[in-house]
C-alpha cells in the first residue's frame, strides 16, 4: 500500500512502488484530467505539481511522490475560483481538442509562480509541452493575459 496526498486529499493505493504516478492518478484514484501522451516525459500532457514544481508524472515512480503535495488539474482551482491561468484560457479561448491543455495549464501555472511576468524567451524556454492542434499562439497570449491578470 502506498499513501499519497493528491489535491489535499489522502489516498491509500494498492500499486507496485515503481508504477508511474500518472497511472495511479488516472486509473487508481480516478482523476482523468491528467493525460497520457508519450510515457517518456517528452510531451508534457501528464504534467502535475509536486510540492509546487511541474513534474511529468508519466516518468516518476509513485514511491517518489509519497509524502509530497501532489496537485492535478482538478485541484488547481482554489475555493471555487478558477486559477488565473484557467481563466485566461477561457478568456482567450485557447484549447482546441484540449487533450494537452491540462498539462499545458499546469506547466504555465508553475512558470508564473516562478516568473510572474515571463518574457517570450522565458516562455520559449519553460514551456515545451506538445500541442498537435497547434494552439501555441493562443497559449502565448493566454500566458501574457494570465500574467497581467
Amino acid at each position, binding site marked *: 500500500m502506498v499513501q499519497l496526498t493528491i489535491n489535499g486529499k489522502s489516498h491509500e493505493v494498492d*500499486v*507496485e512502488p515503481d*508504477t*508511474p504516478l500518472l*497511472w495511479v492518478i*488516472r*486509473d*487508481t*484514484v*480516478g*482523476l*482523468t*484530467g*491528467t*493525460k*497520457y*501522451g*508519450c*510515457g*517518456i516525459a*517528452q*510531451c508534457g*500532457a501528464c504534467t502535475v505539481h509536486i510540492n509546487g514544481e511541474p513534474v511529468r508524472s508519466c516518468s516518476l515512480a509513485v514511491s517518489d511522490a509519497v509524502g509530497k503535495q501532489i496537485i*492535478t*488539474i*482538478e485541484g*488547481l*482551482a482554489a475555493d471555487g475560483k*478558477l486559477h488565473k491561468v*484557467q481563466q485566461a*484560457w*477561457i478568456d482567450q*479561448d*485557447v*484549447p*482546441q*481538442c*484540449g*487533450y*494537452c*491543455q*491540462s498539462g499545458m*495549464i499546469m506547466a504555465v501555472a508553475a512558470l508564473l509562480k516562478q516568473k510572474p511576468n515571463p518574457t517570450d524567451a522565458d*516562455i*520559449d*524556454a519553460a*514551456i*515545451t*509541452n*506538445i*500541442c*498537435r*492542434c*497547434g*494552439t*501555441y*499562439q*493562443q*497559449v*502565448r497570449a493566454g500566458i501574457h493575459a494570465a500574467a497581467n491578470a
Partner: protein
Amino acid sequence: MNFMPKMNRRAFVVSTAAAGGGLALGWQLPFGAAEAAEDSPEVNAWALIKPDETVVIRIARSEMGQGTLTGLAQMVAEELECDWAKVTYEFPTPGQNVARKRIWGDFFTAGSQGIRSSNEIVRKGGAAARMMLIEAAAGEWKVPASECTASLGVITHTPTGRTVTFGKIAPIANKLEPPADVKLKDPKDWKVIGQGKKRLDTPLKVNGEAKYGIDIQLPDMLYAAIKAVPVNGGKVKSFDAAKVEGRKGVKKVVQVEDTAVAVIADSWWRAKTALDELPITWDLGDNVKVSSASIAAWLKEGLDADTGLVGNKTGDATATLASAAKKVEAVYAYPYQHHVTMEPQNATARFTDEKCEVWTSTQNGEAALALVSETSGLPIAKCEVYKTFLGGGFGRRSTSHDYVKQAVLIAKQMPGVPIKLLWTREEDMVHGWYHPVTQAKLTAGFDADKNLTALHIRISGQSILATVMPARMQEGRDPATFSGLYPGGAEAAFGYDIPNVLVDHSMRNPHIHPGFWRGVNINHNAIYLESFMDELAKETGVDPLEFRRKIMAKHPKHLAVLNAVAEKIGWGTPAPAGVHRGLAHFMGFGSYVAAAAEVSVDGKKVKIHRIVGATDPGYAVNPAQIERQIAGSFVYGLTGLFLGGITVKDGAVEQTNFDTYDMMRIAQMPKVEAIVMPSRSGVWGGVGEPTICVAAPAVLNAITAATGTRYRTFPLREHGLTLV
C-alpha cells in the same frame, strides 16, 4: 456534460450499488447519448429546451478540436432564434441515429465536411424548431402564427405584445407535426453565424472535466494493452502466456485476430508491463524486405512509366513540351507522415450475447457502430457507440477503427466485463494510417517569348482510397490524388491558366497503410506546384508574385487570397535586414487559401518570423475559430515539413515516440496573421484543412530566397535544417 444513455441510467445505478460502493471513481459516465424526454421534451431532433430556458443543441459531428461543435450550434441557434448565452449541447449516439432513420444525417467528420455538408440540415432543424415553437404559442393564444415572431428565446404576438418563453411553450411544441416547408434566413440577416463566438467546450477543457475515450471509467472495468505484429502482412506465430499469467493483476492473455496479442489486467500499467515481459514470436512475412529506399526506388520508376490515370488534361501538354523553346524540369518527394493524435488510440468495449457497447474517440460514429456490429456478430440494434471528445483526429480516427475492432474482439473473450484497450504511444506510432508517400516530376515548357505554354505533373505513389475506400475509386483512378490540380470545379481547382496541362498518376501502393491526414494530398501537391512556380519565375527572371498573377486572370478567387497575403506581408517593399519572403496559394475543400512567410536563415537554422494566412471559405461561421484553425494547421503542416517523415526499415516503421519523431513546440511558433475573407458566393468551403497546405511552400520559397538553395525532398531535417 455528463449525459448518459437514459436506458442505462438505472442499470448503472443498480450495478454500481451492487459493486458495494468500493468504486472511488467519479460518475464520469459517457456523455455521448442524447438525453431523451425525461424531464423536458425535445422540440425536434435538433433542439431540446428545458424549463429553465437552457437550449440543448444536438450535434451529430465529432469534436476533435476543429470547433465544429460550436459552429454547428451557431447555425442551429441562428434559425432557432434562441439566446446564445443559454445554449449547450449533446452528442446523439450513432445507434439513436439509426433508430430514428438517420434524422441527424451523416456523422462522418473528415474532409473538412463538418459544417460544409451539414449546413442545410442543421439550419433547417433550427428553423423547424422555431416554427413549431411559434405555432404552439399562436395556438395557445388562438392567433395566427404569422402575427408572432421569435427572438432571443421569446415569442411575441406583435399586435398585442403578449410574450412567452421557449422553455414554457416547448412541451406543447413537441406535440406538433414538424413543418413541411422550411425557409432559411437570407445570409444578410444572420446574427449568430459570422460571429466569433467562444467555443462551447472550453470551460470543460481547462479543469480536467472534458472526457475523451481514454477517460472512460465503468464499474468493474478491466484494462488491456496490446501489441500487433510490427510489419503489416505479418502474423502472430506463438506466445507464452504462462510466463505472465501469474503476475499480479493479470486476468487473461488473449490473441486478437492473427495479428496481435493483448494482456488484460486490473490496471493498464499492470497489463502493459506484463505485455512487455510476454515472449511473442512473429511471422513477419514477405514485407520485411521493404525499406524506405526500396519504396523510393519503386516510386522513382513511376515518374517515367506509362499511365492511364489522368486527373487533369487540358490541351496537349506532351506535344507542346516536345516542341518547347525552353523546358524546365524538377523532381520532388514527400514522405510518409504520422498523425500523432495527442490521445493514443483506445476504445472501451463491453460485450454480452445481448448487447455490445463501445465508448471511443471517433470521427465517424456510424462507421464505428457498423464495425462493432460486424465484429461482435450482433445486429446493429443490439450495438451502440458512445462518442467522446477526441484528443485529436486529423483523419486517423475517420476511416480506420482498428482499435475499435480490437477492443470488441478482446471484450468478446471476457463477456460482460467492460475492458478499456489503450495503445501505447509506441504501438500508435508504428501502427498508423500514414499520410501517403509520393514523388513528382514537374516539367514546364516555354515558348520563344517566355510564355508558359505547357505543364506536366507526374505524381508517382500511393493512393489512399485504393486501400481505405475502394468504392470511391473511379475506374481504377483515385480522384483525391489530384486535389488542388483538378481542371475546375468548386472543390479543389487548379488556379492557373496554362494552355496545355497534364496531371497524371502512376499508382504504387506499398504495404504501409495510407490514410487521410489533415489536408492529405493538398499538402504535397501544393509543395510540388508552388515550389515549382517559384522555380519557373526564377528561370524567367520574373518576380514570383508577378509570374503567378500573369497566369491567374481567369482565377479571381485564387488571385484574391494571393493578393491579400502579398499586400499584408509587404511584398515589393524592403523586408527587415536578413529576412526573406516567400508566398504560395492553393485551393482545397472548397476554400481558396494563400500564405506569405518571412524567414531568416543562419547557417542551417531557419527562423520563421511571421506567416500571413488567408482563406476564402465562402461563408465564415465563426471567424475567431477559423483564425485558430489557420494557425493550428500551419503548425501541423510545418511540423511535417521540418521534423516529420516516417521511415521504413525491414518492413516496419522506424519511429516509435516523440524522441524519434519530434514536434514543433511553442519556441518555434511563428507569428501567424490570419485573414478571413469569405466571399459568400453560395459555396461552403472547409476550414480545418485547406490552409495547412500553403504554409510549407511559402516557407520553402522564402528559404530559397534566403539561401539560393531549392530543397525538393523532405523532411528538411534530412538536409540538416533545424527550425528555431
